[in-house]
């Protein structure tokens, strides 16, 4: 089986210093890969490299069996990849929710009525059909996150790249988000600090530190901890 996405020995530099170094990874269908590591380790850069927003200094990026180096090659693959940005406001640029969700389909060849129909369908599937006519900049953080995801899902991607999907999401919308991602039947790469979320969703994990990846395993085991607690006075 051809991997959906793969990186081989990729090195990405910012100025002189490498942000990613000798990074290789392979994503197959139905893989749910978590990438875990400290701030500034290169997680976001890794996702950006996969969609061609960063170009490697050396190494290979293959998307859906196709080597990608030029903007045109990446452009062809992008509708099949949904990238959820860390900051929802960067991704929600249309006046109303429905327009925003229709943006992707409209640009990949749908007519406006088709795109809007797909948008409504996707919003309904996420349980947020009631937001359709709302103005995007007045949504709550959790609502914005879900609408961003709807904008990606409306393009019917085969892969999702999720950069801190639970950031700034309240409990109710968090439950919708988890349900939607659990029900997504493509592959995904997940960058998150939320260990519970990672454990619930991911099937595989990689650790990243200083721009280098290492395999990791996710498991649950009991721990004896001694750490400080705060208790209300009786």
């Amino acid at each position, binding site marked *: 089986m051809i991997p959906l996405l793969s990186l081989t020995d990729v090195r990405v530099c910012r100025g002189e210093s490498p942000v990613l170094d000798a990074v290789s990874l392979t994503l197959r269908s139905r893989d749910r890969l978590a990438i875990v590591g400290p701030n500034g380790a290169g997680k976001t850069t890794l996702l950006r490299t996969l969609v061609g927003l960063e170009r490697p200094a050396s190494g290979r990026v293959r998307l859906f069996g196709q080597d990608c180096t030029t903007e045109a090659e990446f452009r062809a693959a992008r509708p099949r990849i949904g990238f959820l940005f860390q900051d929802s406001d960067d991704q929600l640029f249309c006046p*109303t929710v429905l*327009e925003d969700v229709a943006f992707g389909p*409209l640009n990949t060849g749908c007519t406006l009525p088709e795109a809007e129909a797909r948008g409504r369908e996707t919003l309904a599937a996420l349980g947020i059909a009631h937001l359709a006519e709302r*103005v995007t900049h007045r949504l709550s953080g959790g609502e914005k996150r879900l609408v961003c995801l709807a904008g990606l899902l409306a393009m019917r991607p085969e892969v999702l790249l999720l950069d801190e999907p639970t950031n700034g999401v309240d409990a109710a919308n968090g439950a919708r988000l988890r349900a939607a991602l659990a029900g997504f039947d493509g592959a995904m790469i997940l960058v998150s600090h939320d260990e519970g979320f990672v454990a619930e969703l991911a099937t595989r994990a990689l650790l990243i530190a200083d721009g280098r990846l290492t395999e990791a395993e996710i498991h649950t085991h009991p721990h004896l901890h001694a750490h400080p607690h705060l208790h209300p006075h009786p």
Partner: protein
Amino acid sequence: MIPADLRLRLVAAVLLVLAASQLAHLGPAMAALALALLLALAARPDRALWRRLRHVEGFVALLLLTLPFAVPGAPLLTLGPLSASLEGLSRAALLAAKVTTAALVLLALLGTVEPIRLGAALHALRLPEPLVRLFVLTLRYLGLIGDEARRLREAMRARAFRARTDRHTWRSFGNLIGMLLVRALDRARRVEEAMRLRGFSGRFPHAALAAPTARDWTGFALLTGLAAAALLLDRL
């Protein structure tokens, strides 16, 4: 009477304000002012909206103070070398009525509309698409950047900053605006990338609007009819 359809509202607002700005006699101008006031009351604007009129009235006050002395005519009041004329006063009253009418029309027709929703209407009215896109994107990010600016101002206040008439203040505001601009450019880059990733090919969605209802057309006809009547009355 005010059409719910935003296209008709926009067109009506432009026609009404144009008509008001061309009135030349006090009588019709006063009639227009009364109608505009009724219209504004019918739109039920809240207090904040009424407060907007203050800005306009500043200009009106300046006119009322200077015009009577600048227009020659029958003297009404003499202050030293200056003399106020009846003609001047009536000219000032005419202008005040027109300026206020126009402001009230805008308040009534557009004051309660969420501005970003006008994008779809402007597009439907065949304004150049890039201009409409620019308009909605500006509005989309205005609140966000305004909040950023507000939080930075608060942090400055918490560090004992107080705006004065001095170089330190100007440099600090310059830095504040510079920082906002640099962050805005970063934001613009990320938004452009987000559009590119979603396959942007120059097609930006502007929601299709339902055709105006008979009620919308009636309201539109009524409003523009009144404007035409006021103009006609004025010219007779």
